[in-house]
């Protein structure tokens, strides 16, 4: 009887010799607040795909902190900053996450900083380009994407050099991101001395009637249109431009909002030749970009887009920081670890400055013959 009992005990524990350390241990939680519904839902859901993929990659490689798995706690703020603040508090106080990333639009990143500052929790911004996202100063905040000024510099210099591009008319969303975007572009054009900005307009969150704005733009006869309109309103705006015969003989430009396969599928024939600023594209050849492309192709059978890459990077970074800190509970250690990270991300070399900016550059793509091409 004693022998049978001993055999049973050994047999029960024998398999655990082969289980990696950390299995069954509490997961390391990273909190995500995204617009999974509403006008920004396309970007939010693509971002989430990237984050989930990154978490899967980290977990497949054995997890962190001795084999603990990354768990993403995801909440939907519908693109409304006030809701972003509420869910940020929930993520920290109820879900007990170690790091938060509450993104899209920039107004939400900014609004949530009050919470992360008060509760002293590391906050990553991966999709907040507006200058104010990091300019107000916040020791626990880290921006991993590029700044609107860098995007403006990359695209603005390209547009300024286009032949016979003397006048530009621009439209962007009426929020921190949109105003920061146009402000940055106008500053670049002013510095270079070309082109002249003949019109700037801002559209509201749910707006889909662009006729009045477009008619005004058309009347000013610019050489170039900068149409920074989010999907799916971007398709409507382009169709309305075509209805008004605005596109022929003009340069067309935009932001990351034009780097969208659904948009290209719906109105690609109207986008021919359009240039756009992006943070990343699957044509990048660096090892981390290719790692993302391979993982995404294996799971989804297609190439990832810019939004997916912006979701991938914060999870990879948060995992590195927590691993380096040696803890997922001590926020000060995680903050110090994050500050000291230097990493070649898909978007570029990340090295945080005093404001928490990563210093990654922006790039320019062109849509031609049904495909996106890297031109700068």
């Amino acid at each position, binding site marked *: 009887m004693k022998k049978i009992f001993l055999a049973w005990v050994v047999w029960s524990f024998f398999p655990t010799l082969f289980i990696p350390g950390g299995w069954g241990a509490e997961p390391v939680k990273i909190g995500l607040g995204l617009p999974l519904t*509403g006008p920004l839902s396309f970007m939010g859901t693509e971002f989430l795909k990237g984050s989930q993929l990154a978490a899967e990659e980290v977990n497949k490689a054995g997890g962190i902190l001795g084999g603990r798995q990354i768990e993403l706690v995801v909440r939907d703020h519908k693109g409304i900053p006030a809701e972003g603040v509420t869910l940020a508090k929930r993520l920290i106080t109820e879900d007990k996450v170690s790091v938060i990333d509450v993104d899209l639009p920039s107004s939400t990143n900014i609004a949530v900083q009050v919470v992360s500052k008060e509760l002293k929790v590391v906050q990553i911004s991966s999709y907040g380009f507006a200058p104010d996202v990091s300019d107000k100063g916040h020791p626990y905040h880290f921006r991993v994407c590029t700044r609107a000024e860098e995007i403006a510099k990359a695209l603005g210099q390209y547009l300024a050099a286009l032949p016979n591009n003397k006048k530009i008319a621009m439209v962007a969303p009426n929020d921190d991101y949109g105003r920061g975007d146009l402000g940055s572009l106008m500053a670049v054009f002013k510095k270079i001395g070309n082109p002249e900005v003949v019109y700037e307009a801002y559209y509201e969150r749910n707006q889909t009637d662009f006729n*009045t704005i477009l*008619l*005004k733009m*058309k009347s000013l006869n610019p050489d170039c249109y900068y149409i920074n309109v989010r999907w799916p*309103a971007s398709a409507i705006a382009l169709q309305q431009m075509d*209805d008004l*015969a605005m596109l022929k003989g003009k340069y067309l430009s935009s932001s990351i909002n034009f780097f969208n396969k659904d948009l290209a599928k719906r109105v690609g024939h109207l986008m021919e030749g359009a240039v756009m600023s992006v943070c990343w594209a699957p044509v990048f050849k660096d090892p981390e970009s290719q790692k993302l492309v391979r993982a995404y192709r294996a799971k989804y059978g297609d190439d990832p887009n810019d939004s997916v890459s912006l979701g991938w990077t914060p999870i990879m970074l948060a995992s590195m920081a927590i691993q380096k800190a040696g803890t997922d509970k001590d926020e000060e250690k995680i903050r110090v670890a994050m500050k000291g990270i230097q990493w070649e991300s898909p978007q570029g070399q990340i090295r945080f400055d005093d404001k928490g900016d990563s210093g990654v550059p922006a790039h320019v793509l062109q849509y031609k013959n049904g495909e996106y091409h890297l031109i700068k």
Partner: protein
Amino acid sequence: MDTFSLAIQQVVNGLVMGSMYALMSIGMMLILGIMTVINMAHGEFYVLGGYFCYFLITRMGFNYLAALPVAMVLVAGVGILSEKITVRPLVGRPWFTTFLTTFGLSMILRDVAQIVWGVDPREIDSPFLHKRVVLGPVYLTEHRIFIFAMGVVVIGILYLFIKRHKMGMAMRAVVRDREASALMGINLNAMNSFTFALGAGTAALAGSLLGAIFNVLPSMGELPLVKGFAVVIMGGMGNVQGILFSGLILGVAESLAASFISLGLSDAIAFALLIVILLFKPSGLFGKRI
């Protein structure tokens, strides 16, 4: 494009949008005039029109022209149900009681639409979309011309209906004197249901027509509701022609203000115009009973 051409284009643009404001408002005016009910759910009838049209085209295989009247009938049915549940039980109560119940109804309808169709915009496919029509300096699409024509024709039919048809005369009688009408044999409950159905149906038509240009969203009824009320006040209670002209005036004022004064202030300017008109003519531009 010179200033004159831009102005003409914006006027045309404004007339198209204005015809839809008028279509939206006519139902509100009838409900308010006949039942003394401020229907806060009218914006949701507009939204449901767009969603039903989308559903009929994408799931039931209807073409756009066939989907329009069917969507109107379906939303008219929702209107009848709404009247029976949220308004009829409160007949005789103070006006703010039905104001609150219709407000609650609008919240319910919006949430139901969101649950059923989600919050992402839905595209309605019209055979007239993106077919450009150029008339001198003015660029239009066939769909916008269709919208304007439908708005004017439907309002015209409604005008004749109210003026000449037996039911229309009954409606005018109820507006004049509700109790006397009941004594004369007019079934007030049936009249109320019919009015709600008519109002909901016309709002649904506006939603189906504009939904093809702007996509259909759960929140798209908010601004048309406010503008609808503005047109009712500006046009004068009980005046169908007044509603049409006021809608057109509001649409044109908005477009011109956005183009020549300030885009951000276009709504404010349009409503300031309403206030100025009411200061000089409190009964509305065309205030006259039907």
